[in-house]
Structure formats: C-alpha cells, structure tokens
C-alpha cells in the first residue's frame, strides 16, 4: 500500500492531490467541456455556413417559435441560479438544502424538455419535419443534441442530489453544476442562431 495516497481533504470532501490548485474532478470537467465546445462548434459552424450560403433558409426559419425559445432560455438561466445556490449550500456542508436546490434545477430542466416536446409536436404537425429541408434537419439535430445533453445533465444532477442528501461527495455538486452551466451556455448561442437570426 503506498504511503503517499492521492487523496487530500478539503472543505467539500475528499479530492485527489492537486498540483494545479484545481481539484481533479473540476479539472477533468474543464477538459471534457473543451471537447464539447468542439462538438457543438463543429455542428453550429456547419449550420452557420449553411445559413450564410442559403438565403432561402431564412424563410424556413420564420416558422421557429421565438417566444418558446425565449421562455426556455429563461428557464435554463433560472435553473443555473439554483445550481449556484446548491453549490453555496454544499460549501456550507448543508447537503440537504443542496439536494433541494438541485431537485429544483432538475424540475426546471424537465420543464425545458416538456416545452421542447410541445414545440416539436407543434412543428411536426405543421409539416415542418426533418425531411422538409436541410434547415429543419439542422434545427432538429442541434436542438436534439442539446436536448440529449440536458437529459444527461438531469440524470447526473439527480445522482448527485441523492448522495448530497446524505452529506457525502459534496464536491460533485460543483462539478455537475459546471456541466449544467455549460449546457446553458450552448443554449445561449443556439437560441439566437435558430430563433432570432431569421
């Protein structure tokens, strides 16, 4: 058994030894989000190049529901606030209220998905399916992949809330929160691209 364990005790729980001053869990999340920026970047760049080359897509874009996009944006921004409050609770070692705040964030995330679902069904029934034109293919692909990241975020936050309720692994609250903020930052660019640049 090695005398030098990798572990080091900090305010919110046991984290690995850290030469860079950033706990390993948060450092890993930064690298993961760096890769995610490229995934969404590749997708959005393809879409932007398509929009700039196809003026006719602007007519297609008229049918996107800006109001619903706006409401979803507000929901996500509010959910960010609760995640930050959960992080503050975790720092005060108050696992129970951190879990409560996380569950509010999860509820808001589910609300986002439900609204998105209505929006999809409304659009599909209006004939704006994925086959209609390449713009709609991009619309469904971008919002679909963003939506799947919201689902992953919801699952992660729920798991973190379960352990946080018992007061364990509180540093996870912050790492999951960072992931959630990133997913919201993606929506900050998806919203203007799909709903405002018409």
């Amino acid at each position, binding site marked *: 058994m090695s005398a030098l364990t990798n572990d080091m005790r900090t305010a919110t729980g046991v984290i690995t030894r850290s030469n860079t001053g950033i706990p390993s869990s948060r450092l890993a999340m930064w690298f993961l989000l760096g890769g995610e920026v490229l995934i969404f970047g590749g997708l959005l760049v393809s879409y932007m190049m398509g929009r700039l080359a196809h003026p006719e897509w602007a007519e297609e874009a008229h049918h996107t529901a800006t109001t619903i996009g706006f409401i979803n944006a507000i929901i996500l921004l509010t959910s960010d606030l609760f995640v*930050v409050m959960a992080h503050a609770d975790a*720092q005060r070692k108050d696992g129970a209220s951190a879990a409560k705040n996380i569950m509010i964030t999860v509820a808001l995330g589910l609300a986002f998905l439900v609204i998105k679902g209505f929006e999809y069904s409304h659009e599909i029934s209006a004939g704006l399916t994925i086959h209609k034109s390449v713009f709609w293919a991009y619309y469904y692909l971008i919002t679909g992949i963003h939506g799947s990241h919201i689902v992953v975020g919801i699952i992660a936050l729920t798991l973190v809330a379960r352990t946080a309720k018992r007061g364990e692994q509180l540093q996870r609250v912050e790492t999951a929160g960072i992931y959630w903020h990133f997913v919201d930052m993606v929506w900050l660019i998806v919203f203007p691209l799909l709903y405002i640049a018409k």
Partner: protein
Amino acid sequence: MAIDAKVDLKKARMTWAMLVGTMTISYLAAKFMGHGSTVSTVVFSIMVVQWLILASQFLHLNVEPKFVWGLWISSVFFVAVLFILSYFDVWNHQGINWCRGAADCVQLNEPKSF
C-alpha cells in the same frame, strides 16, 4: 489558485438578473424590430457578453487559474479556424473553377475568361 472559491449568493442573483435582462432585451429587439441583420448582430454581441458574464460569475473563471481560460479560448479559436478556412468551399454557389446548378453554368458553356 482557489481550490474552493467562496460562492457569493448576492452576486449570483445579480448575475442571474443581468442574464435574464439581456435575454429579454434580445428577445424584444427581435420581436419588435424585425429580424434584419442589424438586430442579429446586436443579439450576437449580447450573446458574447452573456457568455463572458456566465463564464466569469457562475463558472467562477475569474478566480480559476488562467490556463482554464486558455483551454476554452483555444477551443473556441479552433472552431473559428474551422469556420474561416472551410467557409470558402462549402455550400457556395460557385468558385474559381466550378459552378453549381444549371442557373450558374450551362453545361459545356463558354468558360468565363480570366
């Protein structure tokens, strides 16, 4: 080099208010002033501001070691490189030695002299 930067809830609520405010501005601008290119540029610049606020406050990048900014800036820079260098070839309707649909170039037409 803060392992655990202290979260300031008052500032968090203020950040939230700023983000929601700017989002409402872009929404209303789009709603009432149409969707022209001026509105779009305004909205996109608001978006960049929102990114910076959210990154520095919620992701507390303002207290995080600098190389995390470096990581994010370089990943966004590489996305921009992909956009700039492949924009000229992709989706365009014509180039120096090619043209796209029948409208742009008649099969076997006289080539444009260069």
